[in-house]
């Protein structure tokens, strides 16, 4: 446990020194402040200000998660840092978990920075303190954690560039897979083809359930059990991906 903590802490320290990360955060903050201008465009309508803000935070965090998840693990292998770490009494599982939690801490930090800026802008626009918006940001963080786990999983057997392609694909599919099933049923798709779509639906990460933005933007009553199930889903999927990543990494010759 101590090894995981140390690797996580080192990952956090290393990543927050990355100038690219700073660049993304600065652009994220600029976008959040750009909301002040967007707010004027929509006559300061609170629902629309929140929609712009939460979408911006989501996209910038997704870029950060994609950037960190697909480069951090690969960099350690490429720069042979992993030799040094694994020569110590550290197992490969501890290394993978340490990397994952370290990257999650970076994302937590960026979510907090962008979240504070968002709440500040929403308050400035007299739209009140957006507690539910913070819940939506927390759910977005959970989605990003799953996203990171997938990126680490892919990084254990693929190059950095291909990891970006796979992870982006899952990001896109994860959001449209629910719609695909609905559309398949709407056009009366049957037999094996419907079965394939449904298998895809259950096996691929279904990221729609982390979308609490509707709750923050619209008056949609969402039962707390849905949040609980989403958290459990994320935990289960992350455990699955990290277990697979550890097993693949165990077999990898370094």
């Amino acid at each position: 446990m101590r090894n995981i903590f140390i690797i996580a802490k080192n990952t956090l320290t290393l990543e927050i020194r990355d100038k690219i990360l700073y660049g993304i955060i600065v652009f994220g903050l600029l976008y959040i402040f750009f909301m002040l201008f967007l707010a004027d465009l929509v006559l300061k309508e609170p629902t629309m200000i929140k929609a712009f803000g939460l979408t911006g935070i989501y996209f910038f965090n997704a870029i950060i998660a994609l950037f960190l998840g697909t480069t951090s693990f690969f960099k350690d292998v490429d720069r042979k840092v992993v030799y040094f770490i694994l020569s110590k009494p550290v197992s490969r599982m501890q290394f993978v978990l340490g990397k994952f939690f370290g990257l999650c801490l970076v994302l937590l930090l960026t979510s907090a920075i962008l979240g504070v800026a968002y709440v500040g802008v929403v308050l400035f626009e007299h739209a009140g303190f957006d507690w539910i918006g913070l819940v939506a940001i927390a759910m977005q963080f959970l989605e990003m954690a799953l996203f990171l786990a997938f990126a680490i999983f892919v990084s254990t057997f693929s190059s950095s560039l291909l990891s970006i392609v796979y992870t982006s694909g899952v990001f896109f599919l994860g959001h449209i897979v629910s719609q695909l099933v609905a559309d398949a049923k709407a056009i009366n798709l049957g037999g094996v083809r419907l079965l394939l779509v449904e298998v895809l639906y259950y096996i691929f990460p279904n990221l729609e359930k982390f979308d609490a933005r509707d709750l923050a933007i619209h008056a949609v009553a969402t039962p707390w059990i849905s949040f609980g199930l989403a958290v459990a889903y994320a935990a289960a999927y992350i455990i699955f991906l990290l277990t697979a990543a550890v097993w693949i990494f165990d077999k990898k010759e370094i």
Partner: protein
Amino acid sequence: MARLNGYTKIAVLGLLLALVALLQFEYDATKITLPASSAQTASPFMVRIIDMGFHPAVASFLWATTMPEILDLWNKKTEYFPDLAFVNAVDPKLSYPYAFSVLTLPAAPAQDDSQAVSQADAIGAQGLAVADPDWRIPYYMATNEFLYAKDDQAAAKYYNIAAETPGIPQYAERFSLNFGIETDQRQKTEQLWETIKDSTNDPDTQARAQAYIDHLQDFDYLDAASKQYKAQFGVYPTSTAELVQAGIIPSVPVDPFGFTFIIQKDGTSAIDLSSLPSYISAEPAQ
């Protein structure tokens, strides 16, 4: 290459930036204008698939481009309606486009008031059915019924819905609950415009509401002055100029809509229908 000092470097960078701006300016001047793409070239269904669940944000961005199109109605261009339908299809729960349309459409040119109100009514009814609960939709529908359709019964129905919608501000709730109690029509209308002004961030609507309030208050002002004149001289004045000559008012108020005020035989103020403002006489109502 000679070494440059700090100030020279800044100056060179400034010049290069100016050159970039100049080139942009020149490019804009020579740019070929291609036909603008319309939101109608895509289907809301496709947008909902590829926006990855960001329906409110996408609909809000689309709304920011659709909203100004309402001004085109004055130029007989009606893109506003299909584009509004597109925004509503991308995110049917986004309530503001419905509320904005219900509030603004009756002021836009239409064949007649009833057509404008029925257009606004149809959009409002759709909003009431599918959008987030938003008190402004029934409130503005009620306002249209009262001001334009002169249907107090329908107005009372919508004010009642507005009063029961969560989140209605106190000033609007008070008005909605007391609708029909006021006997003075002018006072009721003035209060109504006050609530409309407070309920919107649209500067054009606010200015329009303020103009109506000023217009109505001018009548109150002249009526009170006329009564004071009668108290002093025993008869009502025959013109607004007499009120100024008697020192009761410093000057005749300037009507925001350009009308000329007169004093009627019974001492009440009114509009001089023989000298309508140029924009009315030049463009008679259709």
